[in-house]
């Protein structure tokens, strides 16, 4: 018998109206623009070291267990599961000379090393996160690694993964291969046995490899710069490699640790490289309308003591920022490419009292979005003009437009980052950009 579990219940979070992001479904609009310049990095794939883990693994398979390198992905996954645990523990261990923390599952591994030994295994009890396959480097980085040309499918049915031809050439001449061979006996066990006990002190060089910034290391650094920071897009879906290279140089010229992604974009709108400037202006035009629309939508979700009506929301908006100062700044910016966003922009800038018609359009859009998610709208306008607020908003930003305009003279309320944070994070790890002091 175990000790019985006795508890009172909390409300099921699934019963609570979702605090899901993107109630107006702008995500596909901005993501399509962002992807043209940054095709494969995302909020969950912002790390060179994630790509490196996949690279080391598939290189290691070809070197040490060729049969597994040609195996279906299911067979490869079990080996990767253990290898990812090994890398995670090595990257976070205080017993080694250097640490590169900040990866999925770090919080659960601090107690894995006991008396300088630790075990890795493919059973769920060893997993770094509850679903290591989906939310670890296997699930998150496969598409990015394939798209970036670091990996390709092997010939197995169903297919597994292997290094692309370019990656294989680099691997063969890289410090990674030397290291893999140095650990040959240990890694062969990690790749093939269900549970392996390992000694942490053995892996100091692996920890150092993760900590190194490859950008200054000749072809090895060039490879990572090319595959991650200026990766080719699918044909017809993105900018050329030359433009991406200009983009990287332009960011390097303006980047300072601590700058917000909005500030970086605003500086890029003044770039003297035409293609970079055009892209930044495009991003800014898009974000100007999205930021405005989300602000209007949030105002409709405010609660007022005298009840919620569209009139009240309009008055509040006028008093708190929806005025000629803001709108004229936005009017100076370009039109966004998306037709629906252009209509919202036109509506907002068509006169003095444009809050209500814009709000009505946005509430209609929101209702359609929530209906497709099989959920009630967070707020809807009734025929009487009353607003039925189900999910009220607590705070609307910016609180002080004057300060906001000092930081962002364009007036844009930056909401989405167009993969800028993922890009600068990967670029810092590679060594292309300086790393923020707090890591």
């Amino acid at each position: 018998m175990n000790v019985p579990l006795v508890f009172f219940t909390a409300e099921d979070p699934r019963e609570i109206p979702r605090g899901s992001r993107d109630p107006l479904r702008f995500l596909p609009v901005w993501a399509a623009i962002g992807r043209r310049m940054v095709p494969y990095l995302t909020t969950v794939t912002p790390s060179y070291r994630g790509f490196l883990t996949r690279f080391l693994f598939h290189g290691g398979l070809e070197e040490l267990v060729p049969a597994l390198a040609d195996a279906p992905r299911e067979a490869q996954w079990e080996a990767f599961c253990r290898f990812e645990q090994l890398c995670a523990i090595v990257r976070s261990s205080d017993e080694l000379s250097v640490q590169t923390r900040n990866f999925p599952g770090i919080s659960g591994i601090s107690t894995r090393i006991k008396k300088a030994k630790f075990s890795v295994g493919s059973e769920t009890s060893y997993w770094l996160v509850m679903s290591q396959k989906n939310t670890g480097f296997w699930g998150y980085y496969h598409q990015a690694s394939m798209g970036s040309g670091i990996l390709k499918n092997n010939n197995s049915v169903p297919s597994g993964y292997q290094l692309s031809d370019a990656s294989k050439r680099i691997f063969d001449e890289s410090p990674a291969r030397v290291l893999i061979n140095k650990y040959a006996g240990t890694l062969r066990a990690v790749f093939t046995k269900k549970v392996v006990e390992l000694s942490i002190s053995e892996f100091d060089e692996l920890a150092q490899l993760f900590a190194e910034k490859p950008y200054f290391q000749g072809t090895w650094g060039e490879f990572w710069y090319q595959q991650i920071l200026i990766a080719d897009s699918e044909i017809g879906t993105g900018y050329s490699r030359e433009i991406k290279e200009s983009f990287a140089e332009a960011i390097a010229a303006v980047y300072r640790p601590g700058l917000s992604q909005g500030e970086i974009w605003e500086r890029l709108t003044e770039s003297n490289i035409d293609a970079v400037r055009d892209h930044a202006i495009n991003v800014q035009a898009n974000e100007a309308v999205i930021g405005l629309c989300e602000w209007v939508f949030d105002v409709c979700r405010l609660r007022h003591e005298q009840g919620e009506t569209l009139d009240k929301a309009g008055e509040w908006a006028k008093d708190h920022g929806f005025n000629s100062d803001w709108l004229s700044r936005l009017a100076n910016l370009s039109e966004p490419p998306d037709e629906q966003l252009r209509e919202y922009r036109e509506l907002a800038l068509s006169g003095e009292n444009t809050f209500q018609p814009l709000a009505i359009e946005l509430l209609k859009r929101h209702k359609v979005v929530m209906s497709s998610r099989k959920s009630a709208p967070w707020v809807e306008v009734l025929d009487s003009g009353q607003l039925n607020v189900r999910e009220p908003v607590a705070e609307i930003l910016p609180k002080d437009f004057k300060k906001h305009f000092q930081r962002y003279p364009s007036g844009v309320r930056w909401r989405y980052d167009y993969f800028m944070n993922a890009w600068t994070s990967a670029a810092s790890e590679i060594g292309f950009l300086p790393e923020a002091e707090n890591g």
Partner: protein
Amino acid sequence: MDRSLSLYQQVSQYFQPLGNVEALVLTTFGLDVHYLERSILPAFFPNLGDGPADEPHRPLFEYLEDEQIPVSVVYDANQLVRGETVISSQMSVTKELRWQAHPVVRASGCFHPKLILALVSDGEQQNLVLGCASANLTQPGWGRNFEACALETIALKRGIESSLLVDIGQWVESCQSYSRGSAALEMIKDAISNANPHGSGTRVHDGKYCARLWFGQGGLGLGEWLKRKIIPEDIRSGDWRLEILSPYISHEIPNMLSWVNKWIGTSQSDVPKILFYCPRDGELIDLDHAVLKAYESLENVGWAELVGESLKSRLKDEHGNTLNRFLHAKVYRFYTEETEILVIGSANATIQGHRDRLRGNEEACLVLRRKQVQGITLKPWLKYIERELTADDCKLTPSADEDSGSEHLMANIQAQFDWSTRVLTLANLGGTEVLVYLGSGSELCCIAGGGSWKEELDSQLVGSLFRSPAVRVANNDSGGQAWIYLVEELNLHEKPPAPSMERNVDDLIRDWQVGTDQRIAERVARESMPDDLRASSLHASPELDEGAVQDRVNDLFLAIYRFRREIEAKLSSDINDNRFARNQVQSRLFGRGGMSVRYFVEKVLASTLPDNSSEASMSPVEGYLAVLTINDALLEIAPAIPPTEFPEQMDGLLAVVGQSQARLRNSVFEVLAQENSADEAERLVCWVEENFRYTRATKEAS
């Protein structure tokens, strides 16, 4: 007591390390079928992962299609609900997952226990999990109310000393009187009798605690049973206190309260020794003032409120005001500074709940007696309300007591349908004549009091039960009133998968190429991809969507090859000893579920030779090759099936597949004959058969 997780989360966490569920029984007063399938049952199978937002039960659906895990739900027939409303007899109930429903009609009192009983195994050790809760299998129960639950696991070892296991064994036998067809109860009963447990009295386990299950055994009400079994005289000394959480309190004082009031004595302080949680609805007390008056006669009882803000909801009303959660927990907590006795389960503080009357409710509570860790003093949960409560504090119409509607006119019907024989059996256990209806059609039969009806149904009526496994029953004496009863379904693996969960032939081909775990993992992985990755991805994910170019014939061969190898592997183990393997073979070969041979062949036929309302999605050649290959695979498998296992079913299956093959052969022949001469067509078909067959004979010949 931890109160930070929902019941769903707690159950998921509890079951995750325990291995596979082999049988599951849930009992409840109220049952919401839709909510049960989507938002409760998946909690017991946490390793399957979450399904898509609009089909959270999809992984479980697929799992139950593949594995014959018996799941039974026993509920009070009067309390079939949807949302928070009892459903009317005019509504239809659909079931999408494979589980057995067992409605209970009681002549008086209600069927009220909220038990979880699960047989689980991690491959080496078989365990029995017992859960006693206050939560009904409804949205308020599992999603919103403030409920209490206790979960306990017992390792099933032969000759185990466990009074709790003896109690559970007795409860299972008593429950079988309501649910004779429950495969899950039968399996649990067998597991308990194999363990052959012996009672250990109230011996404290490991020096820490003892656990028992009270369900009115021996005709003892809760108070009397506690007095005799849990709180014998030798432990009654000391400064005992009692706290009671119950949403409903009857005017008549349960025996337990009268007894405890005498035993526990008067408090030395201003705070009475027995504290009752005072149910509230906003500012008002949700009790009839007569209840307050009745309890004035017990000098050691006082009214109290819960310490802290556990009842604050995260939901808001239409004005934005924070709502309060409804306290539905039923907990009796006896404690001194060192010892605690907890009674947790379904029993409200009413005379029906305590079974003080011979014909009280069916109830169940887990009773735990435990010593507190040294150095830690037990603290009260409740805070005494010092001011006097008056009639002005009480609601004029308090919430209806769920125990009070126990006297009812509902017809006492037992309805069973066997998916193997297609026979519906109805028994009228009441004294008056009833009319039974099936689907929206006219009356099915009229059964006199004490009578029964049994008949093999035609395909139209079977179709009606397939869409909604329920009968409507009207009792002439109740003024035309009618009720809806879920039918107890037998041989569930013979039932086709729910139409709302249907898959097309290409889905099936893909499913047949991979094992259950991988299939479910891929579905879960697809859903767990980050939004921006999924939404902005312009191309298919090679990880999740099979990036390779589709080649249906190749996929078909691969799918059927995998199927044959999987079945052969299972047959090579001793399926008599391996219940899982046996069930899987049975379900795959002879069932009608989503992964069965019959379902696959039906889908191929429908996709190749559709009726007039749809278009063919497979060419005759593809369809013919599919069934030809299936037939070959079955012929390969047949000799490996032990003669004692399924001999007639195999012959039946081969006949069905053979007929389908003949139909498809004709259609191929017709198509070829249109383009070539009949001789040429015949030659081509023979060539295909010679070159594509994969029987042992052809292999040897080649």
